[in-house]
């Protein structure tokens, strides 16, 4: 109880908790769940974008996309490392993903259907992710906070690249290209809003996480910030957002927006989105198909170690 009080006091004071520090078991568990879920999201998130690398329409865009997807893999790597500092191995976390126990961001259960989806993912999905993640740079757990600083920097860069690619198509492209962009925005807008999670009233875990400084703003607060930031960007692009109720509310000093289809949200989170099964199968297949490689690497290392000892 004394340790717990000391811990709570450090959180209160805004101290960073480090790997070697004592922490309550529930804090540790909550963090592992959150960080590994975030790591899994980066890894699964490589798939919808990776789907377009071989079809990127210019070599410059191909290079940008390839680098972006690589960055996501890199984020996965830091995040797994951050979670490992809490005593759970990467293999354990992957096993939780592959067996369906662990989640990843539900947004990646939607398919990328056209090239414009790549730009829109950069703009809206990375945009929403940043909105969620920036506060985590001040999260109470040091290794996570430091990983998030680096990740947020790179994500901002991706978001700008995504937006820029849309701007190029909307400003200089053909009518067919503009239609592509509008269509992609129509498909990704609502799922992006869902990325902030259920409404606050339906988000029971939030309070404890807020108290521990693992979460800094509520789902609805973040969602509103995102809408407020994004609407002017949409206007600059010259596309419309698929929400008839979206309008500026001078009184609230915020944009009002329409009702989210929570049925869809829960359906997709619950495993019945368009790509849930395929995404997980793809990851499991990559892992299973690679088993012989991992075994061979171990076997090689053992052989050489034995030989070195014998020599």
């Amino acid at each position, binding site marked *: 109880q004394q340790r717990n009080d000391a811990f709570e006091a450090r959180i209160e004071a805004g101290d960073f908790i480090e790997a070697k520090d004592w922490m309550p078991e529930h804090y540790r568990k909550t963090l592992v769940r959150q960080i590994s879920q975030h790591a899994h999201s980066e*890894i699964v998130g*490589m*798939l919808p974008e*990776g789907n377009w*690398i*071989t*079809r*990127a*329409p*210019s*070599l*410059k*865009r*191909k*290079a940008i996309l*390839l*680098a972006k*997807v*690589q960055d996501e*893999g*890199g984020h*996965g*790597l830091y995040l*797994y490392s951050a979670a490992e500092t809490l005593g759970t191995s990467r293999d354990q976390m992957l096993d939780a993903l592959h067996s369906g126990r662990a989640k990843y961001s539900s947004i990646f259960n939607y398919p990328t259907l056209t*090239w414009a989806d790549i730009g829109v993912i950069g703009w809206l999905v990375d945009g929403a992710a940043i909105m969620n993640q920036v506060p985590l740079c001040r999260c109470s757990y040091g290794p996570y906070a430091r990983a998030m600083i680096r990740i947020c920097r790179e994500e901002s860069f991706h978001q700008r690249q995504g937006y820029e*690619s849309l701007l*190029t*198509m909307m400003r*200089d*492209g*053909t009518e*067919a*290209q503009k239609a592509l962009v509008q269509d992609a925005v129509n498909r990704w807008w609502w799922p992006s809003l869902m990325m902030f999670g259920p409404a606050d009233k339906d988000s029971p875990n939030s309070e404890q996480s807020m108290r521990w400084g693992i979460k800094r703003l509520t789902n609805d607060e973040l969602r509103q910030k995102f809408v407020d930031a994004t609407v002017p960007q949409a206007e600059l692009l010259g596309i419309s957002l698929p929400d008839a109720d979206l309008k500026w509310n001078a009184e609230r000093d915020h944009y009002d927006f329409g009702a989210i289809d929570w049925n869809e949200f829960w359906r997709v989170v619950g495993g019945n989105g368009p790509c849930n099964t395929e995404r997980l199968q*793809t*990851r499991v*297949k*990559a*892992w299973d*198909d*690679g*088993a*012989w*490689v*991992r*075994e*061979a*690497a171990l*076997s*090689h290392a053992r*052989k050489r170690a034995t030989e070195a000892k014998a020599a």
Partner: protein
Amino acid sequence: MTASIQPSTRDDVRYLLPLGDACLVLSHRLSEWCGHSPILEEDLALGNIALDLLGQARAVLTRAGQLDGQSFDEDQLAFLRDERHYLNPVMMELPRGDFAFTQARNLMAACWLLPLWTRLQASSDAEVAAIAAKAVKEVRYHQQHAAEWVVRLGDGSEESTRRMTTALAQLWPYVNELFATDETDAAAERSGLGPAWSTLKPEWDAAMDEVLAEARLARPADTPHVYAGRLGVHSEHMGHLLATMQSLPRAYPGGVW
């Protein structure tokens, strides 16, 4: 506007395109691993190699386009050339195969690109020399990375040895082409643009033999196969690769990306 273009048959263009295409096509195959690698670190490493090769391809195609005289840029050369005008060695376009195949091919390609880029640093074309100076550093890392895997898998488990042996046997018939020489090579040697591919063989042999020895793998016997990607005669895989790669620019005439 989406009709195919035909590059010039100038000797310097015909010398550079096979190199640029080799990098582009191998990069394409490597990028197919994205999200499907046996370990996350390899998703990053293969992506990184794909990115380096893509950069090399862009630089070489840009230079070839300048020399060509028809003002083709890298994208026109990549996206509006038909298969018969793509000049990469056939080895580069073969499907990605398993991880052993990918690493074996990466090793073969790097052992070929390294001496090629090394000599191209002294190219009479200053642009080419500058591209080579950057590329040589990248390819040195690619070679090392692939060599480590070939050793690890060749001298790993029973299964990995079997797979690596199979991969080498499948790839070996395509090796001849990397050192076949033609009139284009002769012209490049005369002008100082670059070496004849045939002159790269001793270095390739030495580098490969070293890795194979370390991996405790036998070197496959040479075969009399004749492939001629450099003349635009490819395998049946190439058309499918290009259908995918070129689909967007072909479907959106006048598109600005």
